[in-house]
């Protein structure tokens, strides 16, 4: 259920050279599952900016975003103030399918939405493994946070400067009950082909509204046309046409 509200910025600090963590206070009641996102209005920019939810703790909302353009650049400079945010957006991860030992695979800024998922899965007693993929050592974030949740964590780096050298698919374990993933599309494709179980994939697309009205982000799936913002961003493996 879409909800519009104002959130107060509590903190906003870099985690790496161009990845920032922003914490906000506000009404998070519309956010009902991990994998959902919020859509943020920024002064001077016409379209809102969709950012995935990294965590909710009480009334605190955590967002982790990479500076990729004007909007995220403007966000990175904010120290305090209020943001007009649409929350409760998107169809998140379905945790009922996880089995006992789900595997979470995140690439770069695909890692943040998996954090809230990992937390929820750990709360329900699952053995959670996480593969966190980055290009290089200096880009790594949230390894400790996943460890603190009690997840078994493998970090991969493309250049081998930390953890396992290679892509996330170089570190796939033998046994897991289900896969949840988020990251750049080439990574999602490789995961799609590499995993032995079913799973859920979170997609990214340029959006107009973010709440299902404009048909700006539609993709074709096995089960028909889906709006990434409303019917996604999480799609089940069986639905994806790859």
């Amino acid at each position, binding site marked *: 259920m879409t909800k519009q509200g104002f959130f107060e910025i509590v903190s906003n600090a870099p985690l790496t050279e161009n990845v920032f963590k922003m914490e906000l206070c506000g009404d998070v009641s519309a956010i009902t599952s991990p994998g959902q996102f919020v859509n943020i209005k920024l002064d001077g920019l016409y379209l809102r900016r969709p950012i995935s939810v990294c965590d909710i703790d009480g009334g605190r909302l955590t967002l982790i975003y990479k500076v990729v353009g004007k909007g995220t650049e403007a966000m990175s400079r904010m120290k305090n103030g209020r943001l007009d945010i649409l929350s409760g957006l998107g169809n998140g991860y379905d945790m009922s399918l996880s089995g006992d030992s789900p595997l979470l695979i995140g690439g770069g800024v695909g890692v943040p939405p998996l954090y809230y998922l990992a937390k929820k899965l750990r709360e329900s007693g699952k053995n959670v493994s996480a593969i966190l993929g980055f290009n290089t050592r200096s880009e790594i974030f949230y390894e400790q946070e996943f460890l603190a949740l009690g997840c078994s964590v493998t970090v991969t780096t493309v250049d081998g400067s930390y953890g396992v050298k290679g892509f996330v698919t170089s570190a796939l374990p033998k046994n897991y009950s289900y896969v949840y993933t988020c990251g750049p599309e080439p990574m999602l494709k490789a995961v799609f082909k590499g995993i032995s179980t079913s799973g859920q994939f979170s997609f990214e697309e340029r959006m107009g509204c973010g709440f299902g*009205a404009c048909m700006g982000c539609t993709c074709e799936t096995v089960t028909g046309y889906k709006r990434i913002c409303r019917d996604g961003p999480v799609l089940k493996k069986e639905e994806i046409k790859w």
Partner: protein
Amino acid sequence: MVNTSVSLCGIALDNPIIPASGTFGYGYEFAELYDINILGTFSFKGTTREPRLGNPTPRIAETASGMLNAVGLQNPGVDKVISEELVKMKKVFHKKVMANVSGFSLEDYVYTCKRLDACGEVGWLEVNISCPNVHGGGMSFGTSCESAAKVTAAVKKAVKKPVIIKLSPNVTDIVSIAKACEDAGADGISLINTLLGMRIDLKSRRPLLKNTTGGLSGPAVFPVALRMVYQVAGAVKIPVVGMGGIATAEDVLEMMLAGAAAVEVGAQNLVDPMACKKIIEDLPKVMEKYGIKNLNDIIGGAL
């Protein structure tokens, strides 16, 4: 107390605010946020005879004070619109709705209009001869007086409900096309559809939109839309529905002074889903500020 009610082709509206086709779906997403029965009416997502997926993504790009879209008339086709979408819509919207129709041939337009004309919940048919994002249809009907008149006459012959023809601004003389539609029997004119535009991604050196071009909307186009509404309203006797970049109650008043009997609000719904509610709530206050007691008194006031 001020009077915000107006009449559009013989049907009374509580206020002149109409969310524009393609920015409001069938209303359900907005009904989660506010009671959409406060609207004058709304124009639902453009409907074609057959289902359409639309164009490949990216379909959306930002611009200064606006946006480009190249959705390409994605819709489930008239059968499903009637059997599924309008059934769901009726649960959240209880007024007469405006049915927006597009096509790729005269027969398409006539068929789809006829089907929607038979639906009790439809009050008006808004015939889109101006979509810039599809090939071999849409806008190609709206760029010459002859083809615009042909579509108008064919649809008018086939239906009972008021027919509003939605015009493209991507023409050399919009006034002559509006007049051709009026002469062919149109009950109203709505304008403007989006202005054809593009953006290029500096990193990839390729167009940002997969369709290369898209339609520009948002506050950036308001002055262009206002000018065209002013010109058309000055030349035809049938009601004109003004749209293009409307974001505030003040914009509504400007549009009505330029000759609009009602207005459509488009892109603003996407960036602020509460936009139409805010405009409807602000309208009486802004009317009072400018000494307007009855909206009908200002229609065409600047002509």
